[in-house]
């Protein structure tokens, strides 16, 4: 009898497990469908059927060429890179956010917290305002790649700095790292302020738009450069899910469960630093995705990182893809900054989830 009762209790815990799998599946299907849809939407409309026909033709599944060559050119050189970049950046930012929230055991942690974003922003400001005025062979050679390179370097350097400040004898103090991140953010803010003071009107406008983010510059050439960094985070961070689960109990508890905590922390910080640095370098500052996507999913499927991490990747990609679609269509032919869309759409939704959850359980 008592085993039967126990089975009932076990069974009650199963639905969350199953529904998590369903949520992942459905999100992935929706992402695929929205990708097909959004490569077709723009100044030249390509219906989904034509999009699928072009892909089938390219992959050698059909010999029929019912579409116009101009459609194919637009699709492959303009739309597709932008859609791919949106999905990759969104996925990397959201996975990084989920990993940071787990590592810091704090649902409000965000990749920006450890200084990656502000380091990148600082380097960008310096590149735009100061470096672009200097005529050195290196700088003229880099040309338009100057700002992304600076952003990436600044982001990773800030991460390394914060990490070094928080590590002693091979042990990383997570709270010290948080506080060091705040200090680095403040210092970067001060120097950016000084750069704004130095900047002329055009530079100021460039800088402001950069901090709001844009995927407008997406090209295959830039995607190939950031792809390894973004993919590494998207693929490797979810593999650390089980360790992250145990770290939520506490670092000592995770160690007692056989997890190599120091190695885990280092791996997460390195991959988050690289991915966020790379994302910021191609798309500017896109806030909110890293913070809110894991949060939304956690309220939906629970905190188990083995579902949360891949789910965040898919939902993050989806959210940024839809935001970018809105950014380039709402005010067409002009483009809205994507950061405006992500914040304006996500924040009220987030608040609604918080309120709903407050009334139901009282915990995040």
């Amino acid at each position, binding site marked *: 009898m*008592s085993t039967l*009762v*126990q089975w009932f*209790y*076990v069974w*009650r*815990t199963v639905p*969350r497990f199953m529904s998590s799998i369903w949520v992942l599946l459905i999100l992935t299907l929706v992402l695929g469908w929205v990708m097909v849809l959004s490569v077709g939407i723009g100044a030249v409309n390509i219906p989904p059927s034509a999009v699928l026909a072009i892909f089938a033709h390219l992959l050698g599944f059909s010999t029929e060429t019912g579409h116009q060559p101009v459609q194919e050119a637009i699709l492959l050189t303009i739309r597709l890179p932008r859609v791919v970049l949106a999905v990759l950046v969104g996925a990397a930012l959201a996975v990084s956010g989920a990993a940071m929230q787990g590592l810091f*055991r*704090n*649902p409000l942690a965000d990749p920006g917290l450890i200084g990656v974003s502000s380091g990148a922003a600082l380097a960008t400001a310096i590149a735009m305002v100061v470096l672009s005025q200097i005529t050195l062979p290196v700088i003229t050679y880099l040309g338009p790649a100057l700002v992304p390179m600076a952003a990436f370097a600044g982001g990773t350097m800030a991460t390394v700095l914060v990490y070094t400040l928080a590590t002693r004898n091979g042990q990383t103090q997570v709270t010290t790292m948080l506080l060091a991140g705040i200090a680095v953010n403040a210092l970067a803010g001060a120097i950016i302020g000084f750069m704004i003071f130095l900047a002329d009107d055009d530079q100021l406008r460039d800088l402001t738009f950069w901090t709001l983010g844009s995927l407008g510059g997406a090209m295959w050439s830039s995607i190939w450069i950031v792809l390894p960094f973004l993919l590494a985070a998207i693929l490797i961070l979810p593999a650390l899910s*089980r360790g992250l*689960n*145990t770290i*939520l*109990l*506490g670092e*000592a*508890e995770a*160690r*007692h*469960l*056989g*997890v*190599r905590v120091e190695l885990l922390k280092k791996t997460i910080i390195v991959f988050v630093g690289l991915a966020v640095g790379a994302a910021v370098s191609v798309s500017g500052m896109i806030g909110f995705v890293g913070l809110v996507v894991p949060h939304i999913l*956690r309220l939906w499927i*629970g*905190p*188990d990182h*083995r579902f949360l991490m891949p789910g965040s990747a898919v939902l993050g990609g989806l959210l940024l893809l839809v935001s970018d679609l809105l950014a380039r269509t709402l005010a067409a032919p002009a483009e809205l900054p994507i950061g405006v869309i992500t914040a304006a759409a996500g924040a009220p939704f987030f608040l609604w989830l918080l309120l709903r959850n407050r009334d139901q*359980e*009282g*915990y*995040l």
Partner: protein
Amino acid sequence: MLEARDITVQIGDKTLVDRVNLKLEPGSFCAVLGKNGAGKSTLLKTLTGDIHPISGQVCMEGTLLSHIKPLTLARKRAVMMQNTQLPFAFTAFEVVLMGRTPHTRGFETHDDRRIAMSCMAETGVDHLASRSYPTLSGGEKQRVQLARILAQLHDAIENADPCYLLLDEPLSSLDMSHQHTLMHHIRRLTQRNVAVLMILHDLNLAAQYADEVTILKDGRLYALGTPDEVFRPELIGDAFDCPVHILRHPEFDCPLVISTALHGKTMPSTGNRVAAAVR
């Protein structure tokens, strides 16, 4: 055998544990007692390898603790720390299932779920399985954590392989009935080759269930022996700075400690001294 050889722990210039030797044999139940700040938790954290002693060694079965692979260690040694908090809404069952981490890769199997649930039944929390952990009461959380620890050592206990259970005040938030049920349960585990080291504040629980009692005072090993040897009025009174009477338990023939300190009075001297210092 888990063995501390002459360990000293210092943080800053304060010595928290001072040249302590301790042996813990599989099959024995050792209670660690002492005043607040006597070094009990520090000693336990040194035995688990979370704090490194400035001198001395901790060995498990003849091997230095730091030379054992984390995963190997996790399969034969479980630790329960004081009040484990969880910032996210895992269910109680998911928390217990984490105890299976050293035994499975990726996702838990059906067996893991069965083991987790039977461990929850042992600590009396199976009915809380689908409750969110942060919403549980302090005592319920402790019982869930204890179930997680038992799930972690389940395989070793089943096979009666030697394994080690280190617990830091695992029963502090439990009611009397649950305290005794769980002490009885843990006591029974020692028959299956489990070594138990438990920090306790309730002297009578220690007297009733432990084979061996270790008393710490100011970081030093103050007394070590069976409850009958250690529970003497002058010894306990001195270790805890609190006068006691020691009687015999009317039913279990073990020592029974009764405090005789300060009934209905305020603490003497300290208050006056503070007042004098202010003046």
